[in-house]
């Protein structure tokens, strides 16, 4: 699986040839540096580690500095490992190489986007788990419009099952959105425009996979 690390810029829309408006997200993807290449002989599996986004040297631990020095690059904020980086990149992938968005994706490809969703705070079951709430506003019902209802039997099982859907913290999860179409790539600016929305706020890290 090949991929790249990027940053969400924001959303806009474009029109296709038939005049249909497509909502799309602009992502600044790469350039990423190969910081480690794992092999079956040394690590037991094949993978490629990419790093993205400059980080101040003084904020980097000695151990990490050593790691980046091996690839002859400056410290980076985001380090992500991609397993089974596509065979076609086998030649290009070497320690310290730079990988750009145009080398990995083409227009009309389908990609998956991974990000951390926006935090929603403590939310009730209606918003968090799409419960319907109590059906009626009237007929004597007065204060349980968005309540979860029963959470289990009183005499049997006489306990609440583990994993029962309840109110709680929502958002801030790692979310993967599948099969987003690549609308446009601007290699000079390291930009990629993909259809649909992507989890997270603006400037949050997005991992694109193919």
């Amino acid at each position: 699986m090949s991929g790249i690390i990027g940053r969400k810029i924001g959303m806009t829309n474009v029109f296709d040839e038939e005049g249909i408006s497509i909502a799309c997200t602009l992502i600044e993807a790469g350039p990423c540096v190969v910081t480690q290449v794992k092999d079956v002989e040394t690590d037991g599996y094949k993978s490629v580690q990419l790093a993205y986004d400059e980080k101040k040297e003084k904020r980097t631990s000695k151990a990490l500095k050593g790691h980046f020095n091996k690839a002859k690059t400056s410290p980076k904020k985001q380090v992500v490992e991609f397993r089974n980086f596509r065979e076609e990149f086998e030649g290009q992938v070497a320690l310290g190489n730079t990988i750009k968005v145009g080398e990995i994706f083409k227009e009309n490809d389908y990609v998956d986007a991974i990000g951390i969703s926006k935090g929603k705070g403590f939310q009730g079951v209606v918003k968090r788990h799409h419960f319907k709430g109590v059906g009626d506003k009237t007929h004597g019902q007065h204060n349980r419009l968005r309540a979860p209802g029963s959470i289990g039997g009183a005499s049997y099982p006489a306990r609440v099952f583990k994993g029962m859907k309840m109110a709680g913290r929502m958002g801030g999860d790692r979310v993967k959105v599948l099969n987003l179409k690549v609308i446009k790539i601007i290699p000079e600016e390291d930009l990629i425009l993909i259809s649909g929305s992507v989890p997270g706020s603006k400037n949050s890290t997005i991992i694109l996979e193919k």
Partner: protein
Amino acid sequence: MSELIKLIEQEYAEIRKKYPSFKAGDTINVHVKIKEGNKERIQQFQGTVLRRNNKSTNGETFTVRKVSNDIGIERIFPLLSPNIAKIELIRKGSVRRARLYYLRGRQGKAARIKEKLK
């Protein structure tokens, strides 16, 4: 807005310049491309602009209302859609609101809009 997003939207900025400036209360004639099988023809839709929505974004739309055979018809067009061939400004209207929903409840004389004189 981010400079990088403008990079994507700039190709549509040219299309935007092509059209005359119009706003709610104006009467315009929209030439819409319609595909029928392999043939393409142009249909015109003339009426009063009720509003412009999501202004100065790529998703900008405008609503045009006309009364045809005593039936009010409103169409919403995306401003930057490639299916819009031409927009003609027929008449400038003088109105005090940005959104003329009050026209929906009016007919005949009551639905008139004063012409804007320069």
